[in-house]
């Protein structure tokens, strides 16, 4: 046990020596790793935020507006309310009574004079609905269901916008997935190359160790410790970069939000998120490093 511990301590010392042996090269590699990881994780965070209901980009989402018949009584409107509340396809809905609709219209600039001459309120009560399934097919099905309801005058849905939106989102998703896959591949290649370069730099030590009867595991150990340390430090750098860039983006958000009537904020990864990133990055680096060592293993093994 003691011997094993000493062997591990020596391997750690060896990896630290390699690290400080060429600090500039290591720093550049860490920066590249950090940036790639930050881009990879940042894209995942954005995509997640884009599709999850609380942060969804609502201005892109099509809405269904249900206009009630003017003669619809309060219990009949209430029945529609209850139906909407019970339907799982309906994510949220907002009721605008006839009076509220008139007030909204009266508050619009230039219409006050024209509306003051009206004897009766000509506006119908409406329900503004956001559906859970925002595909054209899902929206059309919900529209048909709503049209069949009693005392519903008509249902408005911009189907062409729903289709355009669907196509736009599909294209965006496809592009994001491609970029994500590209970044992921680039990350694996970088991690692989890190170990291969380290091996080429320090192969003399590794080959001497092998000629002295060191087991393959012993020879691999400092390389894997190096990969672990590099992964953890790369993860830390990625966390710091993400934190900084999301802060910068969120600082610009009030302007965007004011322009588009939004309340959108990208969530900043907390301590748990950053620690998770460090751990995952460390383990991934060890795994890819191990694969690189299998690839390299004893290609030029001395006799």
């Amino acid at each position, binding site marked *: 046990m003691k011997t094993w511990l000493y062997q591990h301590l020596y391997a750690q010392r060896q990896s630290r020596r390699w690290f400080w042996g060429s600090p500039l090269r290591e720093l550049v590699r860490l920066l590249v790793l950090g940036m790639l990881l930050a881009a990879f994780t940042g894209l995942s965070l954005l995509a997640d935020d884009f599709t999850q209901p609380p942060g969804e980009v609502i201005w892109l989402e099509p809405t269904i507006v249900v206009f009630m018949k003017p003669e619809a009584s309060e219990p009949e409107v209430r029945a529609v309310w209850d139906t909407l509340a019970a339907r799982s396809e309906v994510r949220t809905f907002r009721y605008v009574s006839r009076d509220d609709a008139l007030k909204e219209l009266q508050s619009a600039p230039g219409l006050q004079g024209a509306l003051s001459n009206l004897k009766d309120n000509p506006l119908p009560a409406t329900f503004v609905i956001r559906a859970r399934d925002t595909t054209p097919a899902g929206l059309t099905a919900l529209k048909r269901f709503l049209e069949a309801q009693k005392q519903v005058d008509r249902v408005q849905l911009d189907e062409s916008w729903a289709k355009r939106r669907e196509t736009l989102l599909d294209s965006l998703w496809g592009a994001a997935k491609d970029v994500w896959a590209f970044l992921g591949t680039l990350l694996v290649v970088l991690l692989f190359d890190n170990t291969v370069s380290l091996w080429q730099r320090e192969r*003399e030590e590794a*080959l*001497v160790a092998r000629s*002295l009867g060191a087991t393959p595991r012993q020879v691999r150990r400092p390389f894997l410790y190096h990969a672990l340390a590099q992964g953890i430090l790369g993860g830390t750098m990625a966390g710091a970069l993400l934190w900084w860039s999301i802060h910068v983006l969120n600082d610009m958000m009030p302007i965007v939000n004011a322009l588009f009537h939004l309340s959108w904020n990208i969530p900043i990864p907390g301590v748990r998120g950053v620690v998770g990133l460090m751990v995952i990055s460390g383990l991934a680096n060890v795994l890819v490093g191990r694969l690189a060592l299998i690839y390299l293993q004893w290609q030029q093994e*001395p*006799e």
Partner: protein
Amino acid sequence: MIVLDAVDKVYGQDRKPALDQVSLTFPDGEMTCLSGPAGAGKTTLLRLLAGMETPSRGTVTFNGQDISRLSGTARKGLRQHVGWVSRPPFLVSYWNVEANVAYPLRLSGVPESIITQRVRTAMQRTGLDTLRTRRAGTLTISERQRLALARAFVNRPGLLLADDPFFSLDDTESARLMEALQLFSLAGITVIFSASTAPFRVHPMREVRLQKGRVQQDAVT
């Protein structure tokens, strides 16, 4: 004690024997020179003794244990007791002499306090104590050979094998190296080395002369 009993070793498709019916016994603490021309089977014999190769026929026993029947782990354990000096010796050229000598101990997980002591002894025995801080890459061939010997000795092996350590050394350097080898032998280590011609010696020494994979002569000269 190491015993080779009717050992054959053949390589390749032409099945040409590198060793042919070799039977030898190496008692503990004895120093032996394997001599013979190039291709006589000296290196093959050393590799068999180091456990790096297994015989095609016959047995090699190390203190009663048949090496070819040992498991992978047991063979690794055996290699811990064997000091191996290759030609040219593999050294970490950018490390100093001391770090090179200490390397096998550090790999084996020996505590630093013991390493310092053992490294000092090994360097004294090989006359390297004045070169402690010199980089291995700047050493002469003779100094490199002595460094490899010190490194092999530091692990306290029961058997020290050296493949042509006198190659390209002049008489003075050879004498210095021979002195170091004899010191190891006096310390109870079985020393077996190869040389194309038997080197200069002060004390009588066993010489096994090989020719085309066969033992041609086995005598103390």
